[in-house]
C-alpha cells in the first residue's frame, strides 16, 4: 500500500449547518471573548466578576424603569444613556446595511451622520428662536436626511460611473465632515452670542424631540425602522434588486435592471438614514453639534451590522449589547479605577472572536487520524 500524503487538517465548506449549532458556536465565541477580557483584567490585578457586574449595573441602573419624583414613569439615568447610544448605533447600522447588502463598502457612516447633523443644525441655529416647533423639527428632519443622503450620493456617483473605490472614498469624506464642523465652531453666527470660544451654542428647546420614558422618541423610531428595514430587504422589489446587484452587477444588467440607478438610490437611502441618526443626535440626544456628535458610531455600527449578519432584527440585539459595554465602562472607571477605554478594547476582543467563529460556522475542519481512512471533524 502506498502512503498518501494526507494533510494534518483539511478545510471543507459546510453544505449546511443546523441553526442551533450555529447559535451555539456564536455563544461559545462570545463566552471565550468575555473570558479572555476577564483574564486580561485579572492579570492586571482587578476582579473580573466585579468588572462585568459593575458594567451591567452601570448600564442598566438600580432599577431599569421606575416612577420618578414627578410621578412620571421613566428609565433610570444609566439606562437612558445606554438607550441613547443604542439608538445611534442601531439607526446607523440600519443605514450602512443598505449599502452593505449591495456589497458597497460604505464606511463613511460617521461623515454622513455629521453632515446630516450639520444640515439640521443650520435650521436650529438660524430659525431656532423664530419658527414654531413642528415646522422647525420637520425641516431639521428633512435637512438631516437629505444632507446625509447627498453625502452618500457623491461616492456612489463616482462608483457607478467610473468604479472609483468606495471604501477609501467614503472614508476620506468622514474627515472632511469633521474638519467642517471645526470650521463652523469658529463662525461667530454659530457660537453663543457674546463669546468667541470655539464651540457651537446649545440650541433652543424648540429644537428638541419629545421624550418617551425619559429618552427622546428616536429610540422608538429606531425600533420601527429596524422592522421596516427587515421588510424592505425581504419583501420589496427594491430589496431584491439590492441583493442581485450585490451578488453580481452583470446578472442585474442582463436581467434588465438599471444598475446605476439602483446604486445611486440605495446609497442615497443609506446616507439619508445615517443623516437621520445625525438629526436624532442633535435634536434628541445632545441639543448641539460637536465633532463628537457621531461618537465613532459610523465605525462601530459597521461591526454591529456585520455581527448581525446584516439582519436588521438581530441588529437590535447587537446594538444593545455594544451600548451596554460602552456605557458600562463609565461605571467601572469610577468604581474600580479601570480606564474606560477598556470598553473599546473589550469590544475589539469580542468582535475578533465573533469574526473568527464565522469560519467554523462556514467551514468544517477534518483532522487526519492514525487510523487508515479515519477522520475526526470539528
Amino acid at each position, binding site marked *: 500500500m502506498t502512503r498518501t500524503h494526507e494533510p494534518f487538517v483539511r*478545510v471543507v*465548506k459546510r453544505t449546511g449547518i443546523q441553526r442551533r449549532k450555529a447559535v451555539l458556536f456564536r455563544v461559545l465565541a462570545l463566552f471565550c471573548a468575555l473570558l479572555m477580557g476577564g483574564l486580561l483584567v485579572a492579570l*492586571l490585578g482587578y476582579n473580573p466578576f466585579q468588572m462585568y457586574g459593575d458594567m451591567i449595573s452601570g448600564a442598566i441602573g438600580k432599577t431599569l424603569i421606575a416612577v420618578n419624583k414627578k410621578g412620571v414613569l421613566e428609565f433610570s439615568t444609566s439606562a437612558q444613556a445606554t438607550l441613547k447610544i443604542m439608538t445611534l448605533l442601531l439607526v446607523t447600522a440600519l443605514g450602512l446595511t443598505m449599502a452593505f447588502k449591495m456589497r458597497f*463598502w460604505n*464606511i463613511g457612516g460617521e461623515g454622513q451622520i455629521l453632515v446630516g447633523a450639520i444640515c439640521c443644525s443650520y435650521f436650529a441655529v438660524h430659525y431656532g428662536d423664530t419658527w414654531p416647533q413642528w415646522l422647525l423639527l420637520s425641516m431639521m428632519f428633512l435637512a438631516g436626511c437629505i444632507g446625509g443622503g447627498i453625502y452618500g450620493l457623491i461616492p456612489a456617483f*463616482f462608483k457607478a460611473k*467610473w*468604479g*472609483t*473605490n468606495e*471604501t*477609501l*472614498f467614503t*472614508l*476620506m*469624506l*468622514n*474627515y*472632511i465632515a469633521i*474638519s*467642517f464642523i*471645526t*470650521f463652523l*465652531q*469658529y463662525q461667530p453666527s454659530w457660537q453663543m452670542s457674546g463669546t468667541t470660544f470655539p464651540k457651537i451654542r446649545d440650541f433652543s428647546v424648540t429644537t428638541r424631540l419629545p421624550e418617551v420614558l425619559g429618552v427622546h422618541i428616536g429610540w422608538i423610531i429606531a425600533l420601527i425602522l429596524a422592522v421596516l428595514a427587515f421588510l424592505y430587504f425581504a419583501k420589496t422589489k427594491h430589496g431584491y434588486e439590492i441583493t442581485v446587484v450585490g451578488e453580481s452587477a452583470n446578472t442585474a444588467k442582463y436581467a434588465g435592471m438599471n444598475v446605476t440607478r439602483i446604486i445611486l438610490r440605495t446609497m442615497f437611502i443609506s446616507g439619508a438614514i445615517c443623516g437621520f441618526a445625525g438629526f436624532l443626535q442633535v435634536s434628541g440626544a445632545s441639543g448641539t453639534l460637536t465633532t463628537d456628535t457621531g461618537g465613532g458610531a459610523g*465605525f*462601530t455600527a*459597521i*461591526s454591529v451590522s*456585520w455581527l448581525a449578519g446584516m439582519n436588521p432584527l438581530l441588529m437590535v440585539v447587537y446594538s444593545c449589547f455594544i451600548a451596554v459595554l460602552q456605557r458600562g465602562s463609565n461605571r467601572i472607571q469610577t468604581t474600580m*479605577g479601570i*480606564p474606560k*477605554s*477598556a*470598553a*473599546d*478594547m*473589550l*469590544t*475589539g*476582543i469580542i*468582535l*475578533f472572536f465573533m*469574526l*473568527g467563529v*464565522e*469560519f467554523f460556522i*462556514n*467551514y468544517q475542519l477534518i483532522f487526519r487520524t492514525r487510523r487508515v481512512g479515519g477522520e475526526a471533524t470539528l
Partner: protein
Amino acid sequence: MNGDLNNILNFITMAVLASAPLLLATLGEILTEKSGNLNLGVEGMMFMGAIAGLGAAYRYEQAVTLAGGAPSAMVATIIATIAAAGAGALGALIYAFLVVTLRANQNVTGLTLTIFGTGFGNFFGELLGKEAGGFVQVSAATKAMFSSLHFGALSNIPVLGPLLFNYNWMVYFSLIVMGVMAWFLAKSRRGLNLRAVGENPATADAAGVNVTLYKYMATVVGGALCGLGGMYISMSSTACAGVWVHDCVNGYGWLAVALVIFAMWSPTRAWICGLVFGALLVVRNYYPIPGLPMQIYSMFPYIATILVLIFVSIFQVKEYAQPASCGLNYFREER
C-alpha cells in the same frame, strides 16, 4: 530677507518632521496592501506601537532605577523600538490570522483592529499614568534620544545644516526603510513574488509561491512599521515628546491610509507625497492664505486623496492602481 529664509527653512523642517510618522505607517500599509490585504487597522496598530514604545522605555527606566542603577537612554531607546515594532506586528498578526487563515472580511477586521488598538493604547496609557501618579513620561535623557540630532560641523552649515542634518533619528530611519522597500518591491525576487500575490494570488500559487506565507509576512512587517510610526508620535512629535497624551494618534493612521492612495502604492512617491501631506498639515503656521479660515486647511490632505482616487479610476491607470486582489481573500479551493 533673512526672516523670509528662516521662515522657509522652519516650514520645510516642520513639514519633514510632520511627515515622518506618516511615512513609516504609509510604507507599512503599502507593504501590506501589496500582499492583497487592505488593513484598515493602521490607526489601531499605531496606537499599540505608541503606547508599547513609551511604556516599555518607562518600565525599563523604573526597573533599573529601583534596582539602584542608572538607566541608559540608549538601551531605553532600543527597548522602545523593539516593543513598538512588536506591538504593531502583534496587531497585524491578529489581523492576518483572522483574514488569511480564518477568511474573515478584511474591511470589518481592519476596522475592528482600529477599535481594539485605540482602546489598547488609551487603556494602558491611562493605567501607566495612574501607576506613575498622574501621567507617564520617560526620563529627560531618553527624551533627548528622540529629539533632533547634531552632526557637529555638518549641522552648522548655513541652510543645508538645518535642512538636512537637524532631524531626530527616526526621520533618517524612515528614509532608509523607504529606500530598502523601494528596492525590495522593484528589484528583488521576493518583492516580485509579493507583488504577484497581491495582483493575482491564484497565478502566484500556481507558480509555486507560498501565498499564505507572503501574506502573513508582508502584513506583520507592515504592522511593525505602523507600530514604529506610532512610536514616533508618542516619543518624537512635539505634541507628546515622551509623555503619554490621551488619543495622541488622533487620525494619523487614517491619513496614512489616505497617503497610500495618494502615493499610488509606491514607496518613493510615498516619501514625496508624505512631504506634501506634512506641508499641508503645518502650512497654516507659516503661510496662511489670506481669507482662508485656518480650520479648512486640515481638509486638504483628504480632498487631495479623493481627487487622486477619482483620477486613477477615470483614467484606469493599471500601474497606479491598487493591487488587483486587494480587499479580497484568497481561498485555494474556491478558484
